[in-house]
C-alpha cells in the first residue's frame, strides 16, 4: 500500500486493475472519460484496453471477454448507456462468466450532459445490481467488490459514480501492483443452451434472475457499505441517503442532536432487511437523493409491504428539490427544515455585487469549427435554412454571434432530423453538422438512411482529427489506438462515397473564400451531398504559425471581426480591435474578413 492523490476516475481505474481486470473498453463522455485513459496509462502490460467506436460496441467487446472467463470493464456516461442498452438488456438474460462491471457516470445538474437520467433506475429496469460510491476512496475499494459480486452471481453489475465522485480528488491508500488479484480465465466453453438467447432460455433465466435479486436484498443487507450510522439521542426522525449526498449530509448535521442515517450503496437490489430494521423505531425519514427518488420509493414500498407507519419524505413530497444537483447548502437547508432546527446559513451578509456577465464556454481562439460555421453562414446568407447540430465541441456553434445550431438532440441525430425537417419543408435548405468521432460513433447508419430514402440535404463533417471535447481521444480516423498501435485510418470520405454519395468535397475551412464558394455550390446540388471541413484541433495539434496583429493605423474600429466571429482572442480597446497574443493561434480567419486588411501576421498551419 502507498498513498496517492487521485481523481475519482483514476481511483476507479486503479481499483479495476487491482481487481485483475483483463479487458477494458468504453466511449469517451464527461464525466467518465479518465477511467479508461488511466487504465491505458497504468496498464501493467497484460490488460487489453480500447476506445470503442461507441458504447454498444464497447459493451459487446467486454461481454465477449467475460464469456471467455476474463474480468472485463466498460465505461461510459449516462447517455452512453442508452446506446449500449440493446446488448445490455439481453446480456443480463444470458449472464456472464468472468466478472463484468459496467461503469456508468451519472451527471446530476446536468453539468455536461443532455439528460438527468439515473442509472440506479436503469438498474431496476434492466435487473442489474447497482453499486453507488460516496467518495474517491470508497470508489477504489467498491469497484473491487463489484467484480467479486459480478463473478459470484454471474451477472454484469453497474457501478455508477456521479460527477462529484468522478472528478473529486482525494489522497488515498492504493495497492502495489504485486498485490493485484490475478485472474486465470478458463476460456470460452461452447454451450449453445447457455450462450445463445432464445425465448426458452429467456423465460427460464428470467425466473432465476428474479429469484437471485430477491435473495440479494438479504445479501446486500449484510454488505458493509449499506449501513445505519447511529445518531445521538433517541430521535424519531432520520435520514436516508446515498453517494456524494452522504458526505453533504455529514457536513450538514451538527455534533449534538444527530439523526440516524441510512446510507444505501446498492440501490438495487435494495437492502430490504436493513431498511426494515432502520425504519422500525422511526416516525419520519427524509430521503436526500440526487436524480430519481429511488431510495424514497423503496422505503415507501417497504413501509407498505411490512405495514410500517413511517412518513417517508423526499422529492415526491416536495421536501427535496425534484431535479438538479444537490449541494452542501441545499442539503443543509433541507435537513434543517426537516429537523426543525432552523436553517442557519453560514453565508456572510454582503451588499449585492455589481452586474456580472455570465461566462458560458466558447469555441477556442483559432478553433477551425468557427471558420466552418461562419463559411456556411456566409454562403447561405438570405436563404431559408435549418442547421441541425450534434454533440461535441461544435455544439458551441449555437452561441452568438455564430448562432449556427437550430437543433441538437443526441449523437448522430442531426442527420436524420435534417432529413425529416426537409421532407416537411422542402423549400428549406437542411444542413446536418457532425464531428469526426461522432460520425464513426453514430453517423454512418443515419447517412445510409438519408441516402437510401432520397433525402435532400447537406451533411457537413467537422473533421478535426480527434475527439476534442472530452480531451482528445483517438478514434478510427486517427490511425492509432489506445494500446498505442498504429493502424490503418478509416476514411470518412471513402465511407461516404461507398454509401453512394457522389458529391463529397474536402475543404480546409481556414481557406475561407474557397470554403464559402464550396458551400454555395454543393448546397444547391440535388440529393444528399457532403462537405468535409478538415482542419486539426488547435488544442491538440498546436499550430506553428505566427500570430495575427492588428495595425491600429488601418483599423477603422468597425468591430466586424469581433461581432461576426466571437473569437476570445479579439478584444476592443480605445475604439480599435486588438488581439490577445496569449490566445491567438494565427488561424487568419479575422484577417480574411477584415474589410480594410488591417490584420496580418498569422499563417496557415501547414
Amino acid at each position, binding site marked *: 500500500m502507498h498513498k496517492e492523490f487521485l481523481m475519482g476516475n483514476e481511483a476507479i481505474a486503479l481499483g479495476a486493475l487491482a481487481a485483475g481486470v483483463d479487458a477494458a473498453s468504453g466511449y469517451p463522455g464527461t464525466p467518465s472519460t479518465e477511467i479508461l485513459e488511466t487504465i491505458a496509462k497504468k496498464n501493467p502490460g497484460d490488460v487489453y484496453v480500447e476506445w470503442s467506436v461507441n458504447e454498444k460496441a464497447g459493451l459487446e467487446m467486454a461481454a465477449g471477454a467475460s464469456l471467455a472467463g476474463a474480468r472485463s470493464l466498460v465505461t461510459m456516461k449516462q447517455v452512453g448507456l442508452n446506446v449500449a442498452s440493446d446488448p445490455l438488456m439481453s446480456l443480463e438474460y444470458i449472464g456472464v462468466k468472468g466478472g463484468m462491471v459496467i461503469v456508468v457516470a451519472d451527471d446530476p445538474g446536468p*453539468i455536461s450532459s443532455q439528460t438527468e437520467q439515473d442509472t440506479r433506475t436503469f438498474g431496476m429496469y434492466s435487473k442489474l445490481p447497482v453499486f453507488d460510491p460516496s467518495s474517491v476512496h470508497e470508489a477504489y475499494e467498491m469497484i473491487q467488490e463489484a467484480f467479486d459480486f459480478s463473478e459470484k452471481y454471474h451477472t454484469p453489475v453497474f457501478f455508477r459514480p456521479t460527477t462529484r465522485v468522478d472528478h473529486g480528488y482525494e489522497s488515498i491508500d492504493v495497492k502495489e501492483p504485486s498485490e493485484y488479484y490475478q485472474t486465470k480465465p478458463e476460456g470460452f466453453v461452447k454451450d449453445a443452451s447457455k450462450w445463445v438467447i432464445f425465448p426458452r432460455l429467456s423465460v427460464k433465466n428470467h425466473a432465476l434472475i428474479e429469484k437471485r435479486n430477491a435473495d440479494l436484498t438479504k445479501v446486500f443487507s449484510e454488505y458493509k457499505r449499506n449501513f445505519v450510522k447511529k445518531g445521538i439521542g433517541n430521535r424519531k426522525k432520520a435520514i436516508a441517503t446515498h453517494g456524494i449526498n452522504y458526505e453533504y449530509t455529514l457536513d450538514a448535521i451538527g455534533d449534538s442532536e444527530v439523526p440516524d442515517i441510512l446510507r444505501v450503496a446498492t440501490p438495487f437490489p435494495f437492502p430490504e432487511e436493513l431498511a426494515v430494521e432502520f425504519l422500525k423505531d422511526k416516525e419520519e425519514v427524509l430521503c436526500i437523493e440526487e436524480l430519481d427518488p429511488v431510495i424514497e420509493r423503496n422505503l415507501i414500498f417497504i413501509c407498505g409491504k411490512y405495514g410500517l407507519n413511517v412518513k417517508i419524505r423526499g422529492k415526491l413530497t416536495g421536501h427535496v428539490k425534484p431535479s438538479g444537483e444537490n449541494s452542501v447548502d441545499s442539503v443543509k437547508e433541507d435537513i434543517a427544515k426537516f429537523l426543525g432546527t432552523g436553517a442557519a446559513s453560514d453565508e*456572510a451578509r454582503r451588499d449585492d455585487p455589481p452586474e456580472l456577465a455570465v461566462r458560458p464556454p466558447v469555441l477556442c481562439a483559432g478553433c477551425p469549427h468557427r471558420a466552418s460555421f461562419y463559411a456556411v453562414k456566409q454562403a447561405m446568407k438570405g436563404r431559408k435554412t435549418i442547421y441541425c447540430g450534434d454533440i461535441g465541441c461544435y455544439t458551441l456553434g449555437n452561441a452568438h454571434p455564430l448562432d449556427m445550431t437550430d437543433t441538437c438532440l443526441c449523437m448522430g441525430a442531426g442527420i436524420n432530423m435534417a432529413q425529416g425537417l426537409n421532407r416537411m419543408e422542402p423549400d428549406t435548405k437542411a444542413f446536418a453538422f457532425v464531428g469526426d468521432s461522432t460520425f464513426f460513433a453514430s453517423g454512418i447508419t443515419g447517412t445510409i438512411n438519408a441516402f437510401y430514402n432520397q433525402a435532400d440535404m447537406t451533411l457537413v463533417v467537422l473533421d478535426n482529427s480527434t475527439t476534442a471535447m472530452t480531451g482528445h481521444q483517438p478514434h478510427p480516423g486517427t490511425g492509432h489506438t489506445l494500446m498505442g498501435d498504429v493502424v490503418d485510418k478509416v476514411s470518412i470520405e471513402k465511407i461516404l462515397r461507398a454509401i453512394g454519395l457522389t458529391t463529397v468535397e474536402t475543404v480546409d475551412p481556414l481557406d475561407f473564400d474557397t470554403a464559402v464558394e464550396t458551400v454555395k455550390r454543393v448546397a444547391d446540388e440535388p440529393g444528399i451531398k457532403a462537405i468535409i471541413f478538415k482542419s486539426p484541433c488547435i488544442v491538440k495539434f498546436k499550430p506553428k504559425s505566427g500570430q495575427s496583429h492588428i495595425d491600429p493605423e488601418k483599423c477603422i474600429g468597425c468591430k466586424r471581426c469581433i461581432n461576426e466571429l466571437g473569437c476570445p482572442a479579439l478584444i476592443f480597446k480605445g475604439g480599435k480591435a486588438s488581439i490577445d497574443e496569449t490566445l491567438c493561434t494565427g488561424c487568419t480567419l479575422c484577417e480574411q474578413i477584415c474589410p480594410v486588411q488591417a490584420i496580418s501576421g498569422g499563417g496557415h498551419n501547414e
Partner: protein
Amino acid sequence: MSKSIILCGVGGQGTILASKLIAAAAMKRGMHVETAETIGMAQRGGSVFSHVKIGDGINGPLIGKGQADLIIAFEPGEAVRQLPFLKKDGAVVVSRRPVEPVSAMIGIAEYNDQAQIDYLKKEVANLTVIETDEALEKIGNSKVLNVLLLGAAVRSGELGLETDDIETAIHDRLPEKLWEVNERALNYGN
C-alpha cells in the same frame, strides 16, 4: 486544523495546476486532502472553480456558502462570482487582469472589471490585489500567474501552508528548468 480554499478563474488559466500544487504541498505535510474540479465543457473559456479542503474532519471536497477560508481568483469578476462562499473574515487573493467575456465583447452583456475590484475592496478586509501585468513583466514570464497567486495566498495567512511547502511541491511536480522562475513568482513582493 482544516482549511477550505476556492480557486476560480476562466477555463485555460491554470487553476487546476494551482490546486494540485496546494494538494501536493499539504500531502507532503501528512495532511488529508480532498478537491473537486470543473472538467468538461466549461474548460472552453467558461467560468471554472476548484474546491480544495486540507486537514482533519473533511466530509467530501465541496465547500458550502460562507465556509471558505480563502479564495484565490485568477480574474476579478470570477472572484466576485465565488464571494458568497467566503466566510465572514476570509481572505481573497485576486489577479487584477480582467478576461472580458465574449458576450460582453459583442455587446450582449455588461462587464466592468473596475466595479468588480471596487466591490471586493468594499466587502473583503483581507484582500490582496495582484497587479498582474506589472508583476509578470518583472518576473519575466507570462505563464506563472498561478504560482504568483499562490505566493500571495501564503502571505494572506489563510492557506494553512508555508512558502517552503509550495516550493517543495514545485520541485516535485515541475521540471527543473521551471523551478527558478516559479520561485521568483512565489516570492514576488516579499
